[in-house]
Every structure is written in C-alpha cells, then in structure tokens.
C-alpha cells in the first residue's frame, strides 16, 4: 500500500517577536483555513447528529485513517473498494470517517468525515475529542488503518468508550521495522491497540508474519483486492512490442524516481506512466522524464487502466532497494504496493519490479510467477524488458496472473470483512489459500 505522506510545514523565519507576528502570510492563511475546516466539520456534524437523533438513534461505523480517502492513493482506493461495495447486502449507510491530516484536499467516502486535531500522543485529549465528536451515538465497529499514533489512540478511545468492535488493518509498517525512527508508533501503544482489536488484518504475509512474531497475536490476511468486473475470465494473448512499456504507480521516495529515470535512459523504450505525477512529496523533473522517455498519463480510471495495461508487454513498478541508501526502510521492507496485485489481476501483463530482491514486491511476483525483479541498472532493466517481451515467457506469466487474479477478486469483500469482524477471525480461507506456501522472509 502507498503510505500516508509525511508533510513538513514550510520553514518559518527566526523568532523575532511574538509567534503570531512572525508567521508568514501563507502560513497564517493555512492555519486560518485549517481552523475553519475544523469548525465547519464540527458544526455540520452536529447538525447531522441532531437530525439523526430526531429520527431515532442510528448505529454507525467508524473508519480511522491518517489522511483523506480518495482515488489518488493506494490506501484510499482499497478502502473505498472494500467499504463501498455496491452489492453489499448491508451497505454502510452510516460511515463516519476520521482522519488526522489533510494531504490531498478532498475526501469522498462515508456519510460524515472530519479531520481531528493531532494530539501529539496526548491520550486524554484524544479521548476528549472523540467523546465530544461521537457522544450520543451508537458506534458499532471501528476499522482503523494505523500509520500514526493518533489513529491508534482514537481507535482505542472509541473501543473503550463505546464498546465498539475494533478491526486493525495494517497496510504499512510504522512499528516493527521503524524502531527508533521519529514517527515510529510506540510498542506499548501498538500492543494495546492490537490487544483491543477483535480482528487484526494485514495486506500481505510478510507484514502479517512480522506483527505476529513481534506481538504474539494472530493476524489474518486481507490483500489489496481487485475489482471483480475488471478481472479477465480468460488468459489474454501476449503483446509483442519491442518499442514500448508501461510504468505504474506513485513514487514514495525521490531517490526511486531519480534512479529509475537514470536507468531507463539507456533502455531505448518509450515508457507510458499511469500514476500520480503531481505528488506534493516528490519532484518530477520534466527534463528527467524526457531523457528517460517517460510519458506521464496521470491517474486514470481503473477500467481504462485495465484496457491500457493489457496492451503492453510489461509493467514497470519501482520499489525500494533495502540497501544502505534506502531512506524509507520500514515502508520498503514490509510494504507491498497494492497496484502490483491490481495490475496483475486486471491486465495479466508481466510485472517488471525495479528494486531489491528481498522486497515484498519481488517476493510476490516470484511466488506467483508473474514477473521478475531487477536492480536500478540500465542493462539489467533492458535485459528484463527483452525477456518479458518474449511471447512464450509472456504467455506463461499471463496464465499465472490469470490464476492469481481470481483469488484477488473483490467480489463479496465487504460482506467478508463484516462477517470477519463479527467472528473475530477471517470469515473463510479464501486469502489463506491465495497465499498458500508463500515464502515469508525469516528476518
């Protein structure tokens, strides 16, 4: 999954007077906007709550994430897919989404949404905010995608104060491999959060294994599922094209982009990029893009993505190296980008993972036989491009992807989650079977 971004505010000038006096206009306006956002959210929420109470008390479900849920990042796409299932027999009409930062500017999930102020780990303040927000409601269950401490504390507060069932859904690690990092979630808080969760989920086996090993509590796997309607029912024919390739997804780290561009310069292929090329976190130099022959198409709908990707011999997915130069070690070592199973399931196109051989992405494509992994090296990448463009190899990989894809269908996933939360364990073994015999690194 693509992790929530860490945003740093613009640097402020040296202190020359009172705090307000030294705020630049932009910062001051940002703060004002944030305050107004909060105020409007509180007010509108309370207005709705009053209306609900007049109509009788409604059960609500709560979703807690770091930032907005939308289609522009992996966590948002997956969560929306799971919670917005149109054929769900008991659709969540009363979903309250709580987040702690605004990174994308829009949120489009649920009936209510609010950004609560960060508390910096102040448990009492977090309880106070949650009680003020939800008091008088009947909270049935909480789904939390933990990435920062506030999300865990808020989940604990709702579980405690409302007796709601809590489901932890770990997509990105900020604890096991993040030990000692400034944003790492403290072990004590993580342990309490997991203990209070009726159901613990992880997106892939490595993440599950790492958390089970550290905390001694059982997890189930809920992978990044793909839209059932977009999963081909047959094995698609190979695409023999020695001139083009596709690039999928976003970059978590500037160095990945820079290294990929440098490596692609010598590959001689035109690369069409489907993903967010206007990130607030990574600078995409048009000069580098041009030299690497990368043509950005931006984020496209999943339907179009499926159609587009099926027309290429391979899809490049950049990932971490896990070497000394790796900055996002915890993210890279234990995260599996959700676009990898998605691309394989909806297009069957072989995946060319660029990065370290011990990443979750590398293990995933190797296990399912749906691609290969090479380092950030022009010659290695060129060799892989040629192999994956071979019709026989491609047909074999497409066949493997077709088998894999059926296991990653989102059909009935909302119901599966609902039932699993109620049971406190996976409702059935569909995902355990999908990952049967999966080799988890023994680190």
């Amino acid at each position, binding site marked *: 999954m693509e992790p929530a971004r860490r945003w740093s505010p613009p640097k402020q000038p040296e202190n020359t007077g009172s705090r307000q006096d030294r705020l630049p206009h932009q910062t001051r306006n940002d703060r004002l906007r944030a305050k107004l956002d909060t105020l409007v959210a509180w007010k509108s929420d309370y207005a709705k709550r009053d209306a609900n109470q007049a109509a009788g008390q409604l059960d609500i479900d709560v979703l807690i994430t770091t930032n907005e849920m939308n289609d522009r990042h992996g966590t948002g796409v997956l969560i929306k897919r799971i919670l917005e299932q149109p054929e769900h027999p008991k659709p969540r009409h009363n979903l309250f989404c709580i987040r702690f930062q605004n990174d994308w500017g829009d949120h489009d999930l649920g009936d209510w949404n609010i950004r609560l102020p960060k*508390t910096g780990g102040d448990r009492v303040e977090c309880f*106070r905010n949650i009680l003020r927000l939800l008091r008088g409601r009947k909270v049935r269950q909480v789904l939390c995608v933990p990435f920062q401490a506030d999300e865990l504390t808020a989940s604990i507060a709702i579980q405690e104060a409302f007796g709601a069932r809590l489901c932890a859904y770990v997509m990105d690690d900020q604890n096991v491999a993040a030990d000692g990092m400034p944003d790492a979630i403290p072990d004590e808080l993580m342990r*309490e959060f997991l203990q209070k969760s009726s159901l613990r989920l992880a997106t892939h086996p490595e993440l599950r294994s790492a958390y089970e090993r550290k905390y001694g509590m059982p997890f189930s796997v809920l992978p990044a599922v793909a839209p059932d309607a977009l999963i081909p029912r047959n094995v698609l024919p190979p695409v023999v094209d020695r001139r083009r390739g596709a690039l999928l997804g976003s970059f978590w780290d500037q160095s990945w982009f820079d290294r990929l561009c440098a490596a692609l310069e010598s590959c001689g292929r035109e690369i069409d990029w489907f993903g967010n090329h206007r990130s607030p976190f990574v600078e995409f130099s048009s000069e580098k893009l041009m030299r690497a022959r990368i043509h950005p198409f931006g984020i496209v709908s999943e339907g179009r993505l499926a159609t587009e990707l099926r027309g290429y011999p391979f899809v490049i997915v950049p990932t971490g190296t896990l070497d000394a130069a790796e900055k996002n070690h915890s993210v890279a070592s234990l995260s599996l980008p959700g676009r990898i199973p998605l691309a394989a399931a909806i297009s069957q196109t072989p995946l060319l993972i660029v990065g370290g051989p011990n990443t979750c992405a590398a293990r995933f494509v190797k296990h399912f036989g749906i691609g290969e992994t090479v380092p950030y090296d022009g010659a290695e990448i060129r060799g892989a491009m040629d192999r994956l463009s071979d019709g026989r190899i491609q047909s074999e990989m497409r066949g493997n992807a077709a088998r894999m894809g059926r296991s990653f269908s989102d059909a009935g996933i909302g119901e599966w989650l609902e039932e699993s939360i109620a049971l406190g364990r996976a409702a059935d073994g569909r995902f355990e079977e999908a990952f049967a015999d999966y080799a988890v690194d023994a680190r």
Partner: protein
Amino acid sequence: MPVDQQMIDHLIRRLNTLTASARESSVPAERSCDVIITPVEVNDSHGTGVLLQMLFGREENIVSIRSLDQYGGRQDFGLPLKIVHGADSRDAAFARVEQALRGIAVRRVVCVPYQPDDVMTAIALQGIFGASMCTYIMDDQNIAVRGIDDSAMRELLEKSSLRLAISPEMRAAYERKFRLPFFYVPPMAPARLLPSQLHVPVTPPDARHGVVIGNLWSPRWPELLRRTVRNSGVTLSYPRGDSLAIPAEDLRADGIFPHARLEDEELVRMLRSMWFAVLPSGTLDQFEDRRWMAEFSLPSRLVYLMATSHIPVIVLGSRATAASHFVEQFGIGVTSGYDRACFKNAVDHITQTEVNLAMRRRGLLAAGRFVDTGVGEWIWQSLERREAFDRRFEDLMPEKVASAAGAI
C-alpha cells in the same frame, strides 16, 4: 482583496476558542494524582473507610471518588468527588469521568468495587488516562450476590494490573471464577496502637462478661445474638449497641448492655481489660441473607482488635465463615453456633486462664503480620510489578485455601 493581518490573527484566536482544538485552548494537566474509588464516603464509620485511611490517608494528591452518600457526605480523605452514572450509556459515563477529572493527570487507580457505578468509573479512568489499576475486593458483589454483573466485573479485573482480595476465601473464589491471579491483602491495624507486650486483664476470668465486636449487617443477626445470650449466664457489653434500633432495656434484659460508640483508643483500652469478645457472623444456612459478606469478607474489626488488644474471640455462626476461618487459623478464638448451650461451652472454654492466655500470646505473635506500616506503599509497588511485592501476605494464606487457589 487586501489581507488584514491583525484581523486574521484575531480570527485565529477566536476560532481557537470556538473549536477548542489542540493545545491552544485545552487546560494543561495541573497535577498528577492517584484515584481511590469506593462506593461511599471514606471515613472512620466503616471498615473500608478505616482501612483506606490507614493505607493512603497520609498521601498527597489523592482523589477519592464515590457513587453514593451514606454518611451525609462526611469524608476526610483526599479530594472527594461523587460520580453517578445510573442508567447512562457507556460513552456518557466516559464523558462524565473525563469532565470530572479535567485538569488532573491520573497516574494510578485503586478500585474497591461495590456498585456498578464504581466499576464503570474505574474502567473509564483506566481507559482515558491509561492509568495502571488495582482492584481490591473487600466485599463480594458478584459471586454470592448479583450486585455487579459478570461482564462488568470481568472487564474490571482484566484491566487491572493488580488484583487484591481481603480474605483467603475471597481470593480463592474470585480466582476460581475469573481464572485470573489475585493476591491476599488482609485488613490492617495501625502501628501506633500495637502493644509490644502481652496485655492480661486484671479482673478475674470467671466474670463471664465479654464484649460484642463487629457490625450486625444482617437484620437476623441481632435477633440470633439476643436469643443465644438470653438466660445463658453470660453478659456482653456492646459498643455501638445504641444504633441497633432495639430498646436498650430489651437488650439489657437479654444480658446485652449497649452503649455509645467509643473512640478507637478507648475501645482498645476496654478490650484489653476483658477476657473475650463475641463476633456475630452468618449461619450460611438456607435462611442466610448476607452470605456474600459472611462467607467471603474478613471483618476488618476482627483483625484490628485482635492485633491491638489480643482479645480472644468467639465467632457466632457457621464454621465456614471467613471470620471463623481466621480465628481458627491463628488460634485466637473459637466458633460457636447461635445456640445457648454451645455458646456457654465456648465461653467456659475461652475463659479458662491457660486457654485464654495461650490465645492472647498467639494474638500477640500474629499482630505483627497485620500492621499497617508501609502497606499503602506495598500496594503501589506491587501495582508497578503487577504482582505482590513480597510474600508477607501470601504466607498468611491458609494452606488449604492456598492450594485450592494455586491452580491459577
């Protein structure tokens, strides 16, 4: 449109107040406190109050939360707060607790549960503050009586880092039911009242005059006591007997002489001058209406007076009560049914000089194990370790009960 900077700054300050968000408008925690939760006021009118004052009375920064007024609000212990939840929802209870404790950072919680509200308050405090919590069961309200339901009691116990029980019987029963480890912490006596020498009454032992100790919790017990003492040839003084709502002349006709409550020093002096005490307890038969108390609760008065006066005790009632087990374990008394002949025999036995002195000596020897010195701190240290700091009280567990509880 030109931006008026001062106006924006002013607006930000106003909005801070309106939204009450983040750190700008919230009151910082002023001081760290420990919270003691009890059903009623903490004062010297009842055993729980006396014991808690003994354990924590001299500590600073104690917040004392109760859910009921039974003594007109009289309390001289900590910062008193009364929190009542009634039938309110769980989130309303959490909000009430958060509001009541605003400005206070709760470090540790000791809950002496009796009412459902006590349990809810404790759970809320532990949740909101992440405070480490000790539950100290002094009176059963779950096993022999349905005062607190199982799910609430289980949640309280599971969230407690340390679980204490006032008697071996209570400890064993709760461990058996909830499959969680408990530790035994008996009632205490204040060190300042503990004599280092044996006290022997100066009056002759054949006076056949004793003293009633303890509370007559069941309305049956006074009647049983009167019937037992009447025409037995034994007479009893009864401090607090004036509170029984029975005409004094009727009691005197039965050989029971009521008088007003005595201050502790005075009472101890009186007991040291007498040959035996009588502690009415439960019959534990089909007519028993205070089984939860008689079977499991160790009367704090019994320990207190044994340690400070060494007076031998006749426990009236069943031999299966916690009080009976205690006097027999330490050899400081005997048990008699509510039967005149049986009672007379017990008095005859206990007033034999050698028997009486031997019991007193055993009382003197046992007294040092029930002294209050440092016991409050012992509880805090045990809470930090999540287990008994040392075996001083565990070693007092009767072997039979200890082995039954040892399965946990």
